[in-house]
């Protein structure tokens, strides 16, 4: 499978997905809606054979809401896939892809820790880096950095 074949396959299966223009040597960048998130992840694993889960993270676009970014790789055919979804303003709910990629478990916990995204269907959604009694989610743009955190700050 080549990059162009992957692009056409995505276009056939997910008509509403937005595929960004190709960059020389870059990955396929696809934006899907949150409803299609798990379906697209399963499609990427089964049909595009992107079995290597690289990372999951989020971006806070302030008024436009949160955006989730996942990088998958097909190491056999050298296809990189960057799948994104925009949760919309004020929304912090997203379906979990941990049942499909086990590597997403801790990444989703980190995204919950830092951005407060509740992943529906995650087996063990707790904080992973910060202590359990931490208030707020520090990588959100609305988080006030210098707020005192007793007793040591």
């Amino acid at each position, binding site marked *: 499978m080549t990059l162009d074949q992957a692009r056409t396959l995505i276009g056939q299966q997910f008509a509403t997905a937005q595929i960004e223009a190709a960059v020389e040597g870059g990955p396929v960048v696809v934006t899907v809606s949150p409803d299609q998130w798990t379906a697209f992840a399963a499609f990427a694993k089964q049909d595009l054979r992107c079995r290597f889960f690289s990372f999951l993270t989020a971006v806070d676009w302030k008024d436009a809401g949160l955006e989730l970014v996942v990088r998958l790789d097909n190491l056999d055919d050298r296809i990189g896939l960057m799948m994104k979804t925009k949760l919309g303003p004020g929304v912090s709910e997203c379906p979990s892809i941990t049942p499909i990629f086990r590597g997403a478990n801790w990444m989703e916990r980190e995204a919950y820790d830092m951005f407060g995204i509740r992943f529906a269907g995650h087996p063990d959604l707790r904080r992973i880096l*910060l*202590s359990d*009694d931490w208030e707020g989610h*520090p990588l959100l743009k609305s988080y006030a*950095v210098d707020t005192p955190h007793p007793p*040591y*700050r």
Partner: protein
Amino acid sequence: MKPPVPEIPVPVWRNFKDLQEWEQLHQVRPEGDKHSSAFLSITEGIHSFPGGFVVTTAADAFLNWARKSSVWPVTFGLACCAIEMMATFASRFDVERLGMVPWASPRHSDLMIVSGTVNIKMAPMLKRIYEQMPDPKWAVSMGSCANSGGPFRHGYFVVKGVDRVIPVDVYVPGCPPPPESLLNGLLLLQDQISHFRRTGKRAEPNPKVD
């Protein structure tokens, strides 16, 4: 056929909500160094006795010499400053000639060199190790991060200076401070120790030395 999955017991610390709760189980000493009141009153009595100051100052000089000649730092490395601290402890700079033996137990140590960034999750552990050290004890804050938070000061996770957790005697600037700087700080600390008065109380801060 898959082998049976062993059941891993829950670690003990899971039962505590946070280490800060554990800290509350232990006694906090806001009064600083502890002295026996009988010992204090006896030394005060000797000092106020006519001519008695000769005895106390001689005892002070002897005890301070003994204290400053065997300051054992606990090996407590947090970040990249610990590399410079190890270099200071190693053969080229050789703090053992000053009587400092890097010791791996806080219960035998007199000095804590806080070398590196202290974050909020680490601060309770740092405080507990400091409280495990016997009196009299000292602390050296090494590097920008331990002094004020350094380049991470505006991060959400950093304690903005280790003096918000434990009392600090000497601040060594630098990022990281080279071994010469730390050695200078340790010599300053020895000067401070030699200014103890009445056999064990800390002297007022001396602008010439501090």
